[in-house]
C-alpha cells in the first residue's frame, strides 16, 4: 500500500497538543505513521495550515427528509448545478445538493467525516443508501427517539434500563450511531397536530414530559457506554422567549461522563431568544453562554444563520408547520409511525428583517461568549441556517472583529438594541477554529478511539491542507483570504489518499459508515420481548424481520462495540 510524506506543514492538532508547529507527517496504509521510506510520495505543504480532516457533528445530508427537500425544490436544484468533470459526477442543488454534490463540496473544504443530524429508524435503509452515495466522507447517523412509543412507555414506567434496551436494540438493528432527540414529546403530539411548549408539558396520551424523556435518555445513554452523548434539539425551537426552555433543559443535565459532555445541545442559536413576540425578539446569548460556561457536562454547536435563501428541514414537524403559517412557502411534512416526525420548508433570511438580523448575531455571540472552544462547535445546522459552504465565511467572522463590524453596518439599524454583538471584541484564533471544526467534534462524538480528529501515529490519515499561512497571515485583517482559504483546500487526504486538490475531487470514493452496537444481558434482549414484538405485530406497518438494516447496506461499515451496564 501507499506511503506519503507531507513536509513542512504548519500543523495544529489540538488533541495531540500541537498548537502550530512546522512538522512532517508520515502516512502509511491509510494511517499516520512514525516515518516512511524514501520511496514515499512527497507533498510539500510549504508552511500551509494543516489540520486533521474536518468533522461536521450536525448536518442534514442524507435520508428521507433531505431527499424530500431535493425533490420538492427543482428551483434549488437548478441554482446549484455542476457538469460532469473527470471522475466527478453531475451535481445539482444549492441548499440541498445531491449526495455527490454534498460529498464533493465537503471534500473541497477539507471535510472527511459527517454526522447526519437525524435518521428515523423505520427509514434508516434510505439514509444508508445515501451514505454510500456520499462517498468521500465517513458517515454517522443520529438516530431519532423523540417520539418513540417504546421509549415513552419505558419513561412512563420510570424504567431507565428498559429504555436503554430499546436504544440498544434499535441502534444495532438500524446501524445508527447515537441517540437523537428532536423536540422530545413534541413530535408525538404533532401526530395529532399538537405540540409541547415547555419541558413540563405532558405528551398527549403517553403522559410523560420532555424533561422526563431527556433525563431518562441521558442516563440510558451512559448505561450503554455509547461513544457520543444524547444529542438534543430542544423543545420550543424558534419561539420568542424560548431561552427559558433552554436554561431549564441545561439545568436537568447530570455530569455522568468524564471523557465528554453528558448532553450535546445542537444549533443553540435557534433556542436563545428573549422577548415574547416577533416584535420584541432579542438575543439571550449571554444568559445561555453563562449557563454553558458553568456546566462542563454540556456541549453545544452554534446553528448560525447566514443571509440568503436556504431550506429548513428537521424532525420537528410542528415547528416547520409554524414556519409555513408565517411565510406560506411550500411545505412538506412526514410523520413516521411510532417514532418521530419531520417537516421541510424553504426560507429566505433577509437583512431587512430585524428578526433575521437578531438571529444572525446570536450564533456568532454564542461562539464568542462560550469560553471553551471545545464546547461550542461550528455549525449552521446545514441547511437550516445556511448551506455548509458558508462555513468559511463564519470562520472569518469569528476571527475578525473588523469583518463583523462591516457586516453589522449592513444590518437593520435597530439590531444593536436587541443584541450584544457590537460590543464583543473577542477574535478566535487558528487553534480555536481547529478545535471548533474537528478536534472538538471528535471528542464530543467519542470517535477519537477509532482514530478520528487528530494526527498522531495510529490515527486515520484524514488531513486537510489549506492555502493559508498562519505565520504571516493576520486573520483579523485579512478575513477575505481566510474565507477563501478555508473554502478550498490545496489537498484533502482521506485514509491516506488524496481525494481533492485545489477544488476538484480526483478519485472515486469508498467511505465507511460508523455505527454502534451495545451488547446487553439476555434479560434485556428485546427481540424476544412480547411487548416490544407486539409493536410490530399490531402497530407498525412493517414486519419485525424486515425492519433491521441488512449488512449489505454497509459495505465498509465500522462498528464500535460497547458493553451495556444494565
Amino acid at each position, binding site marked *: 500500500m501507499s506511503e506519503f510524506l507531507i513536509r513542512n506543514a504548519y500543523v495544529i492538532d489540538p488533541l495531540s497538543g500541537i498548537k502550530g508547529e512546522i512538522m512532517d507527517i508520515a502516512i502509511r496504509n491509510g494511517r499516520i505513521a512514525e516515518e516512511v521510506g524514501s520511496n514515499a510520495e512527497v507533498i510539500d505543504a510549504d508552511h500551509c495550515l494543516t489540520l486533521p480532516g474536518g468533522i461536521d457533528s450536525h448536518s442534514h445530508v442524507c435520508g428521507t427528509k433531505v431527499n424530500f427537500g431535493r425533490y*420538492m425544490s*427543482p*428551483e*434549488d436544484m*437548478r441554482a446549484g448545478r455542476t457538469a460532469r468533470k473527470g471522475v466527478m459526477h453531475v451535481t445539482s442543488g444549492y441548499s440541498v445538493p445531491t449526495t455527490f454534490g454534498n460529498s464533493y463540496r465537503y471534500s473541497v473544504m477539507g471535510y472527511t467525516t459527517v454526522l447526519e443530524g437525524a435518521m428515523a429508524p423505520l427509514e434508516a435503509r434510505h439514509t444508508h443508501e445515501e451514505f454510500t452515495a456520499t462517498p468521500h466522507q465517513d458517515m454517522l447517523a443520529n438516530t431519532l427517539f423523540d417520539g418513540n412509543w417504546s421509549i415513552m412507555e419505558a419513561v412512563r414506567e420510570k424504567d431507565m434500563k428498559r429504555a436503554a434496551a430499546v436504544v440498544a436494540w434499535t441502534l444495532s438493528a438500524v446501524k445508527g450511531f447515537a441517540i437523537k432527540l428532536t423536540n422530545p414529546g413534541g413530535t408525538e403530539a404533532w401526530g395529532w397536530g399538537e405540540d409541547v411548549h415547555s419541558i413540563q408539558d405532558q405528551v398527549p396520551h403517553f403522559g410523560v414530559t420532555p424533561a422526563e424523556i431527556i433525563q431518562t435518555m441521558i442516563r440510558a445513554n451512559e448505561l450503554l457506554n455509547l461513544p457520543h452523548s444524547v444529542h438534543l434539539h430542544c423543545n420550543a425551537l424558534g419561539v420568542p422567549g424560548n431561552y427559558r426552555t433552554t436554561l431549564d433543559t441545561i439545568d436537568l443535565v447530570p455530569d455522568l461522563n468524564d471523557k465528554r459532555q453528558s448532553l450535546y445541545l445542537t444549533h443553540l442559536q435557534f433556542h436563545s431568544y428573549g422577548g415574547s413576540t416577533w416584535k420584541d425578539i432579542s438575543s439571550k446569548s449571554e444568559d445561555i453562554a453563562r449557563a454553558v460556561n458553568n456546566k462542563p457536562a454540556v456541549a453545544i454547536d452554534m446553528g448560525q444563520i447566514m443571509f440568503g435563501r436556504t431550506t429548513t428541514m428537521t424532525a420537528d414537524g410542528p415547528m416547520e408547520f409554524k414556519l409555513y403559517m408565517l411565510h406560506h*412557502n411550500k411545505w412538506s411534512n412526514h410523520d413516521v409511525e411510532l417514532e418521530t416526525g419531520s417537516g421541510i420548508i424553504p426560507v429566505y433570511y433577509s437583512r431587512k428583517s430585524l428578526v433575521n438580523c437578531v438571529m444572525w448575531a446570536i450564533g456568532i455571540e454564542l461562539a464568542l461568549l462560550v469560553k471553551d472552544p471545545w464546547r461550542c462547535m461550528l455549525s449552521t445546522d446545514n441547511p437550516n441556517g445556511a448551506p455548509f459552504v458558508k462555513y468559511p465565511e463564519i470562520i472569518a467572522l469569528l476571527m475578525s472583529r473588523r469583518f463583523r463590524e462591516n457586516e453589522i453596518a449592513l444590518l437593520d439599524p435597530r439590531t444593536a438594541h436587541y443584541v450584544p454583538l457590537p460590543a464583543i471584541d473577542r477574535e478566535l484564533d487558528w487553534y480555536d477554529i481547529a478545535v471548533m471544526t474537528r478536534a472538538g467534534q471528535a471528542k464530543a462524538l467519542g470517535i477519537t478511539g477509532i482514530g478520528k480528529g487528530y494526527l498522531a501515529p495510529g490515527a486515520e490519515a484524514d488531513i486537510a491542507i489549506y492555502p493559508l499561512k498562519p505565520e504571516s497571515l493576520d486573520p483579523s485583517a485579512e478575513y477575505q483570504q481566510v474565507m477563501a482559504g478555508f473554502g478550498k483546500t490545496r489537498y484533502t487526504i482521506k485514509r491516506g489518499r488524496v481525494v481533492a486538490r485545489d477544488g476538484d475531487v480526483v478519485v472515486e470514493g469508498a467511505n465507511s459508515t460508523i455505527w454502534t452496537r451495545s451488547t446487553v444481558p439476555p434479560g434485556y434482549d428485546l427481540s424476544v420481548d412480547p411487548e416490544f414484538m407486539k409493536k410490530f405485530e399490531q402497530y407498525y406497518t412493517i414486519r419485525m424481520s424486515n425492519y433491521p438494516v441488512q449488512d449489505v447496506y454497509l459495505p465498509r461499515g465500522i462498528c464500535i462495540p460497547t458493553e451495556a451496564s444494565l
Partner: protein
Amino acid sequence: MRVILRTKPRKKPFIPIEAETIIPQNFLRKNDVRVYEGNKERRLEEIFYITTEGPAVSPDQVEIVLSGETGNIKRVGEYMNAGRIVVEGDIGMHCGNFMSAGEIVIKGNADAWLGREMRGGTIRCEGNAGHYCAAGYRGEKRGMRGGLVEVMGSAGDFTAEYLCGGEVRIHGDCGDLPGVEMRGGNLTIGGHCHRPCGNMTGGTCMVFGRVHDMLPTFRGAGNEEREYRGQRCQMMLYKGDAANRGKGSLLVKNIEQDGLSPKKK
C-alpha cells in the same frame, strides 16, 4: 448588423437544437458560437448557412434573422438583453426565456414556454403559442415580471402561469387555466378560454371572448368598462380566487357565457 441564419438539412431533423447562444451579443465579435444537437456539440455553421451584413458596435445594433426548419430550435433569445431577433417561420421551446430587453418577432408558431420568466423587452408571435406561454418556473413563486408578450393567434394551457408583472396579450383563444397562480401583471385574452385565473392572488385578467367553466370561488363585484382593439366593452368584474384568499381582478365580457354561469352579485 444583420445576421441571417438559414437551416441546413440534417440527418436527424427531429432532434431539437439547443441554441441559447443565438442572442445578438454573441455575434458582435465573430465568436465561435456552439449549439447542441442531442448529446453532440455542433458549430453553428454545421446547422446553419450564416450570412452577416454590416457592422455593429453594440448588441442593440444586431438583428438576427432565422429561417428554414426552425420549429425545433430551442432557447433562441434566452437571457437576451439587447437587439432584435426575427424568426421567419416557427420557433422551438423556450424562446426568449429570461429576456430583459430587446425584441423578438416570430412570424409562425411558437412552441411551449415562450418568454418564460421574462423580465423586460418585447416578444411578438404572429401565429399560435404552445403551453406555458409567458409562464414561470415550477417551484419559484414568481414568474414573468416585466416586458410584453403578444400572441396574435391562440395559446395553449397555463398561459401566464405565476405572472407577477408585465403584459401578456393573447388575441386568440387560450386553453385551460390561463393566469393560474397569477399574482400581478396584466393578462388579456381576446378569444375564449377555460377556467381562467385558478388560484389567482393578484393582478388583472381580462377575457373578451367566452369563459368556459368559470370557477365557483370568484365573487362578483359589479360592472366596468374596458377597451379592446378600439371597441368599448362592458365587463363583469370578479374578485378572487377566494379559495386562495386572492384579491385579483378577473374581468369577463358581458356576453352570454356558458358552463357555470358567472354570478352577478
